[in-house]
């Protein structure tokens, strides 16, 4: 599948939410309603950066009840490769951007009898949509939000206002922090667990749940890995007959796109599998950063997820 056609949008409002997070309200440039979506969905925002086009995935925070606008929240990343910095510094009301149609890689399980949602930091954004959907259904749910301190907990306070009995907030300062083991231990059998937040938190929650015997089918997570920077490397694209260099701050996928080659993607975060590309020849090592390929597949070295993964190599030939 080729990349989805994008929707031109205009920024209606920009509001600071916490010292690090801003909320952006987007509307279609032509004034028509935006596509309906399900809780947990994200869009990829396409930003006209000075040197190159930037594309980052952001979760949609609201519901389909009002489709005149979408709300996303963007955390300024210290290690930003440009996307979140661009959103914070170059985007103001009236700015024009483009988005892909929504894709949901983090949906609620419709058969769950109970939902437990854990989030940390800006990982609260998809959970904001989940809670807004859950308050209308009859299924019990419980939410735990972690934040550094009260000024970083604005979105969590908003959620607590919507569902006062279901939302708990845990602050690093003054503490106590979220006790994942204790929370999981209290859940009735059959609960579905969802986690979104920094990589370390997700790994910890998943490991704790597995250790406590939770079935894999009841553990859900969303982690958009920001593509890590790395050393430059050279790639040959065999189908399009091009030779490109991937600079340190660009992902392999971005470099392929910059060379004018259409490549498929959905999440741009190593999660969905859509960008999977066959490796035809390799002299060196693939640096896999995705959560999609299995350990065996990674070890085989015959495929790569170019949205997040790189290579340390003398030669790399891709079927693209």
């Amino acid at each position, binding site marked *: 599948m080729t990349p989805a056609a994008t929707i031109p949008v205009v920024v209606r409002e920009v509001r600071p939410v916490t010292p690090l997070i801003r909320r952006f309200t987007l509307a279609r440039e032509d004034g028509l309603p935006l596509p309906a979506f*399900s809780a947990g969905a994200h869009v990829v925002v396409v930003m006209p950066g000075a040197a190159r086009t930037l594309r980052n995935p952001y979760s949609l925070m609201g519901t389909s009840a009002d489709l005149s606008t979408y709300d996303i929240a963007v955390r300024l990343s210290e290690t930003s490769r440009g996307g979140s910095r661009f959103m914070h510094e170059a985007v103001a009301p009236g700015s024009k951007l483009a988005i892909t149609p929504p894709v949901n890689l983090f949906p609620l399980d*419709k058969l769950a009898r109970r939902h437990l949602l854990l989030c940390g930091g800006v990982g609260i954004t998809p959970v904001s949509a989940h809670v807004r959907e859950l308050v209308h259904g009859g299924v019990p749910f419980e939410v735990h939000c972690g934040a550094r301190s009260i000024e970083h907990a604005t979105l969590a306070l908003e959620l607590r206002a919507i569902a006062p009995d279901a939302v708990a907030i845990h602050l690093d300062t003054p503490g106590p922090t979220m006790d994942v083991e204790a929370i999981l231990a209290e859940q009735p059998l059959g609960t579905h667990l969802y986690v979104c937040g920094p990589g370390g938190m997700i790994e910890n929650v998943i490991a704790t749940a597995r250790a406590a015997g939770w079935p894999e089918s009841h553990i859900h997570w969303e982690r958009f890995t920001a593509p890590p920077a790395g050393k430059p490397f050279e790639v040959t694209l065999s189908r399009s007959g091009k030779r490109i260099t991937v600079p340190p701050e660009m992902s392999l996928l971005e470099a392929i796109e910059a060379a004018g080659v259409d490549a498929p993607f959905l999440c741009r975060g190593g999660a969905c599998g859509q960008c999977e590309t066959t490796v035809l020849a390799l002299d060196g090592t693939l640096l896999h950063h995705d959560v999609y390929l299995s350990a065996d597949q990674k070890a085989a070295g015959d495929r790569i997820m170019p949205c997040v993964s790189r290579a340390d190599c003398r030669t790399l030939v891709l079927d693209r």
Partner: protein
Amino acid sequence: MTIAFKPDETYRDDFTFRNSPAAIRRFPFPFGEDVYRYAVNIEPHVRGGPTAAYDNLFDIDEHYIAECRERALVLAHDPKRCQALPHMMAAQWDTLELLMENLSTDYPEHFSLVRDGYAWHWTNRALGIEQHFVFGDAGTLPCEPLEYIGRQMQGDLTLQDQREDNLFMDAGMVTCQADWSLEFDLGMKFHEWHGPVPLAHEQGVFDRALKFLLNLQLGRPVRRLNWTMTINPRMDTSPEQYPQWGPDRTTITPENVGSRVHLRVELQSLFRLPRSNAILFGIRCYLISLEELATIPKWSRRLHRVLQTLPPELVEYKGLSRFRDTAIAWLAQRDDGAPTSVGTAPD
């Protein structure tokens, strides 16, 4: 363009269903070359294709009124042909919205939809239906949304919930299927409901198809064609009705093969649904008798050659064993060996 419907034709008893010359030319003929080849022929479901059957995402033709009546007859006899598990309500509304939007935009002479927030007004002039209802409130429709809109559609619909990295057929309205059963498949996973197809499993086809469908994107539907052959223009060849249609297969003679044996093509389309994240599977069935098909010489030549190269396990699976040779003999008289043009469009 106003479609000239043929409201009185039948798909049972006296079988008066016929294709007009225009309907023949728009038939979605499935074979692109002169030999049979198994392929995962999934392509984007975009407007436009080899014949007019591809002009819209949901195709309405001259058989619309008659087919809707046939569906009503099947449902009256067996209400279980329409079923939905409780968690599929959002997907039902998604489906109703998608269909009403497309029909009213593509066939404004026959359908209209006026929306004021959640207060919707639907008009189906072809069937003489007018309905005011509240989108999202099933109590304001005479039946559940899937059944409501399904009764006004040509073709079957099933709804797949996506969970556990799999697809579960958790709702559907199925009255014109080729030998499979909603009652039997409801709630099944992707690989289970595709269980008995020979050859495909070996080729890992379903693993790849599932992976592909799990990533199906909003606004980017896909389609594929499937085919079999049916005796008489009978829509309902379900397992439940086997005693009705099974014996037909032994009645084919050189004299009646041209009028009674029909090529049956399913135009299958798959759509991601927005609010529910479910997948809509549309199965639009087209029937054409060998006589009608032979009015397009390219098609009868090619069908002859394809049937000759069909692997035995597929002849068996598609239920063609009893009459394939008779059909080949009839088609052979209409195949002068001339080369056929590339693609499926009529010459």
